């Protein structure tokens, strides 16, 4: 089973990197780009565990390790084989 974890800055938190990307895109001839927010993406392979067990574990990992809960939020997706 494969898990996808998306970590992004909370909506209310400034994203200097995303803003820089947006400015770069606008400067490269894409005036239609209004804003960009960037984040992190994790692909995690899991063995010997079903989705019901995996999800709470992944959410704990995402909260403790993969994200900084003070300024970031995350979303976990599970892909069955």
């Amino acid at each position, binding site marked *: 089973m494969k898990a996808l974890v998306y970590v992004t*800055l*909370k*909506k*209310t*938190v*400034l*994203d*200097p990197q995303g*803003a*820089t990307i947006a*400015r770069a895109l606008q400067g490269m001839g894409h005036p239609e780009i209004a804003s960009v927010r960037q984040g992190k993406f994790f692909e995690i392979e899991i063995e010997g565990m079903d989705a019901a067990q995996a999800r709470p574990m992944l959410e704990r990992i995402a909260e403790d390790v993969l994200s*900084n*809960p*003070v*300024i970031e939020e995350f979303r976990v997706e599970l892909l069955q084989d």
Partner: protein
Amino acid sequence: MSEVTPEIVAAHSITPDEYQRIVSILGREPNLTELGIFSVMWSEHCSYKSSRVHLKKLPTRGRYVVQGPGENAGIVTLGHDAEGHEWVIAFKIESHNHPSFIEPFQGAATGVGGILRDIFTMGARPIAVMDALRFGPLDDPDAGARNRRILDGVVHGIAHYGNCFGVPTVGGETMFEPSYSGNPLVNVFALGIARRDKIFYGRACGVGNPVIYAGAKTGRDGIHGATMASGEFTEESKQKRPNVQVGDPFMEKLLLEACLEAMETGAVAGIQDMGAAGLTCSTCEMGSRAGTGIEIDLMHVPQRETGMTPYEIMLSESQERMLLVAHQGREQEVLDVFRKWGLDARIVGHVTGDGMMRVKNHGEVVAEIPARPLADEAPLYNRPYTKPLREAPMEAPAFASADLTADLFTLAAAQDLCDKRWIWEQYDFMVRTNTVLGPGADAAVLRIKETGTMIAMALDGNGRYCYLDPRQGARLLVAECARNLACVGAEPVGATNNLNFGNPERPGIMGQIVEAIEGIAEACTFFEAPITGGNVSLYNETLGEAVFPTPVIGLVGTMPLIEPPGIGFRASGRALYLIGGIGEAGETRMGGTQYAKQVLRTLWGLPPEIDFEAEKRVQAAVREMARSGAVESAHDVSDGGLGWCLAECAFPHEVGARVELDSSLRPELLLFHEGPSRVVVSTANPALVEEIAARHGAPALRIGETGAGELVVSNRGAELLRVSVRELKQRWSAALEQWLHAGQEIHA
């Protein structure tokens, strides 16, 4: 607009009395936006309502002072350039303690950003930063892992912001005590220079002048950060977390260049950064200082998010923003400069003559408050105080050292005294290439090309001394700062202070505050180092446990262009002198020392005594020795006493010393007492050192000479210490990383 209920008032940390005051100022009930505005302006953080009564005792005038407290930063004079223009130094210290606990990296980073804006909003280019940091012990069985994480985040945050912005972090100090476990202290001391005729003030002058918003867009960052910074932490604080703002140092660098360039055009009448309490604070303070009013319409404020309410826009603490007042008819010049640097800049309103801070949203008035009462008539509390809180015993325990060399190794590995290279090597301390003495020196020294002179900066605090006796502790640390300046050849011209304490509503804590301020006032008056500004951080408590009272003093000095002595012995065979002599010490006065803390692991008694007159003579002598090149090294005796001072002198070039003392003090006291007014110097010209000392009336005790790779200390023929400098240095250099990695085996 939603109705203001007593619950909402309480949630804004406004007391019923304060609410009545608001009603009488307005002549009516406030709406929610107005309540929010009052709550941030009247928070402890912005109004100093508990400390102001006592802050008035500080000396603020002196022959070098150009601008005292009340502006964004204090200003002292520096000197003249080749063309006859006078240059000045703008400097200030500010805390970012609470945000650094909640989110160490961003909290510390935005702390650096905030104080840099305070400097360049005066028209000065920031040229140096120092930091005073306090954390809980890294090996604490319960809080150790969190303390290590906070230290790591804070140091990275300071490095990130300072390095990206391009200002050198030239020094600082890092100390550890259990009381900082739940309340780390992050105090940032920044300094910049400007031509005196190009200083700008945060004043909204000239009725009809346009008000310009410049810099980053406004988001929902740090809403109510200022009130958060004035409330104790409880378990509920976790819910306050989204308040933390994220900084963008590259944006700040653009803002710096744009502001300085806009000022050059001559089209700017006044300017103030938006720090704590954001747009609210900058509008009402600028109006209040100039005796004018400001009217703005929030529809013109650049916004990062949609659907923001007036309340949110006014209270947002988004970083990297400035408010400017332009001369009428010249606003386009200002806007063009900001556009050139790729920054948002919009006209959001204008200066009025009615003294009101009037906020509209799409033409509709959403807040209307007299600016002066809002900015300057916050309630002042002369809070009741008692004897300063302390629980340490006065009596010394019985103690005796079996092995003084082993004690020295204990000090070398101690968190307070060990090599802080791991911290400062993450900072760019050479950028701008003016750093003559950087981290590890008694005082940082910067070359100033404009005036052909030098600036020295010293930063000190000592929570243990101040816990035992806040007044005496404060007096000692001002004296130490001045002594640090003397060691590099500089003379004090001004000072800034950061007062970090617990909850002022507790009389014992208020007693600490009052005593410490009075101690600072006495010492700053004596050493002619007027306080030109600073910061007060109260409510540094978690679950009822307050931090040790920790006033931090930053002293600025000036000096001619010289090659200042460093702390390290440079060569063998040089004569060693202890300027100031052995000093006096008793068991009671040993209780606050590093020896008591690291070797005996306890705290008692009182901090050392100090004779200001004797201190001044020592400083005058050492200053002249440093300036005249009479000494090759100079290092003051402070934390860890004479024994540790000699070790620190030996480390840089791995040059040892043979020291023979003649004292009736018992060995533990002789080596480790922390009596002030003492400086160890090494010299190739003993006659000159003795002549200078004699002329200033300072004792110059010849204690031995430098040599080889061993540090050997004896007293009246009995050997007390014999240690290989290299071995001791290895212990000292390796210690911090060992403490930082202490927890890893457990997780592995």
